[in-house]
């Protein structure tokens, strides 16, 4: 573009009161700048676009534009049986599939009023807490990377890899696991897996200290997290936030304590709660939650050893509830027994009929409250399924939390929620 043309477009010519004889003298003016951030920005964790209205480098308004990953999961749910939806839940929050499976099967069990055996409850708790550790490791690595500290990323991903390999040995997949089943779990932990996990529980707590060494005294990390993305407890509750973003503001809302499920009320653990409501407090909460998860897993593994003493056909010691009209037979029975094969075939092709009614079941995933609201009209498919995704609801507070911060802090604020767009857009 020629230089002269460019000047003409961007300058306002007005009469200058000091030099009225020279009407063409330019007067400087300021205006808000609109900046599109994303959807291909590496720090937006997938495909999120934000339209930022800027005054200099300060954010005046931030409008999230979502839906780039919308796949219509809620519509798909209306056209599949209850069992068939489990693999879809893996694809919601694709970094933490286990917890989505867990939240979904818990909702269906509440709808059909199914009690899960004790052993299955403990197995579920162990795997869910491992998934929570993975989620927090992933968050820490990427958040530090977004804020310019690359080393932490390598350390957290090194330790996360061990757990993903463990998942692979457990269910054959690292990320899209589908290990939870309605009424129980797909298979039991092998002795080798229990041993690997016990070793990991000894190995991991010093590693949390190692991550903290990189960050606690890092002036850049402190400057970019302390006092950034502050939200008051009242606002956070009003926005419906949950998980570490809410607990960072000093509210101890944790569904594992408020409405205990699985084995969470049978083990000793604490809910870490912050005070300042900033990113640093949320970081601290996630670090403490990893330590609490280690405690929970250790107690659950100990309890599994007690359960091992029981006879294998004891009702407490089963990994799947006994209600053949709903729960799947074990794989070895399917391959050797005709009746069980028919049962499996019927459950997957026809499904089971759920009673008429509606339920909401919330589960404390590591991002926040992941809930499923299921309306059943008595058919084998849900009439309507609503997924309460924490990432989506946290994005509702994004504009409120961004106001007045710098552009670079917008990256911190995405990160502080731990958004995953698969879950946000569904």
């Amino acid at each position, binding site marked *: 573009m020629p230089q002269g043309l460019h000047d003409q477009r961007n300058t306002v010519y007005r009469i200058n009161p000091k030099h009225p004889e020279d009407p063409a003298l330019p007067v400087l003016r300021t205006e808000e700048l609109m900046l599109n951030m994303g959807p291909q920005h590496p720090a937006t964790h997938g495909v999120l676009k934000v339209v930022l209205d800027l005054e200099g480098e300060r954010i005046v308004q931030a409008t999230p534009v979502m839906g780039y990953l919308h796949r219509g999961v809620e519509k798909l749910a209306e056209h599949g049986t209850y069992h068939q939806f489990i693999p879809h839940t893996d694809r919601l929050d694709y970094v933490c599939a286990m917890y989505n499976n867990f939240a979904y099967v818990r909702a269906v069990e*509440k*709808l059909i009023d199914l009690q899960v055996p004790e052993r299955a409850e403990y197995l579920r708790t162990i795997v869910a807490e491992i998934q929570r550790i993975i989620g927090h490791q992933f968050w820490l690595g990427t958040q530090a990377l977004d804020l310019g500290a690359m080393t932490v990323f390598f350390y957290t991903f090194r330790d996360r890899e061990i757990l993903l390999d463990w998942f692979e040995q457990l269910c054959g997949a690292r990320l899209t696991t589908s290990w939870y089943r309605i009424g129980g779990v797909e298979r039991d932990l092998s002795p080798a897996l229990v041993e690997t996990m016990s070793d990991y529980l000894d190995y991991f707590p010093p590693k949390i200290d190692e991550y903290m060494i990189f960050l606690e005294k890092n002036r850049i990390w402190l400057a970019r997290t302390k006092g950034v993305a502050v939200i008051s407890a009242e606002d956070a*509750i009003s926005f*419906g936030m949950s998980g570490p973003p809410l607990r960072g503001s000093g*509210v101890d809302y944790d569904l594992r304590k*408020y409405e205990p499920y699985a084995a969470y009320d049978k083990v000793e653990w604490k809910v870490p709660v912050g005070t300042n409501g900033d990113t640093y407090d949320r970081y601290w909460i996630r670090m403490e939650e990893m330590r609490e998860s280690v405690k929970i897993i250790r107690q659950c593994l100990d309890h599994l050893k007690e359960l091992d003493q029981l006879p294998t056909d004891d009702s407490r010691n089963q990994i799947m509830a006994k209600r053949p009209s709903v729960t799947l037979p074990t794989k070895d029975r399917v391959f050797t027994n005709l009746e069980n094969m028919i049962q499996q075939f019927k459950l997957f092709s026809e499904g089971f009929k759920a009673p008429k009614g509606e339920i909401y079941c919330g589960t404390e995933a590591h991002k926040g409250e992941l809930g499923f*609201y299921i309306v059943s009209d008595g058919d084998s498919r849900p009439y*309507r399924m609503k997924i309460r995704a924490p990432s989506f*609801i946290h994005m*509702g507070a994004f504009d409120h939390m961004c106001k007045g911060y710098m552009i670079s802090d917008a990256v911190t604020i995405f990160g502080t929620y731990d958004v995953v767009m698969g879950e946000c857009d569904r």
Partner: protein
Amino acid sequence: MHPLSARIKSQFPQSLVSIVAYRGEVTANVKRESIHEICRFLHDDPEMAFNYIVHVSSVDWPNDSERFEIIYEVYSIPKRHRIRIKTRVPESDPHLDSMVDIWKGAEFMEREVFDMMGIHFDNHPDLRRILLPDDYPEGYPLRKDFPLQGKGWRDTFEFLGEKP
């Protein structure tokens, strides 16, 4: 009767249609005109103290005279109880008062309901589509009459002698 139900029943005898308890959850069906007033009461009353909004959903019942059902599920963090408030709107006039002035989180949740089911929330500060593009022409996908299988460019071709 659940204490929550009793309180709502005594407070709003006219606007309450029914109260259902299922699997330990209380659901109050209310009239559309008074839902905002009831939600305001649930939020402000110190015994209710429903300060946390869980989700806003919608269900389509195409055979009913009042076709769409809007669901607000709220929770009280200080009191630790939850309730579900439901109301119905007809297809000819799918309007409802927005709850954004009570719970700020309702803004995105109501936008999603608008996007997916086509319910208009009055007094909503920014009622636009949220997950689908702003100029999406094909209606509201979570309605039951929206086809599961799309009619795209590929469907315009002949396949094994079958005309499109």
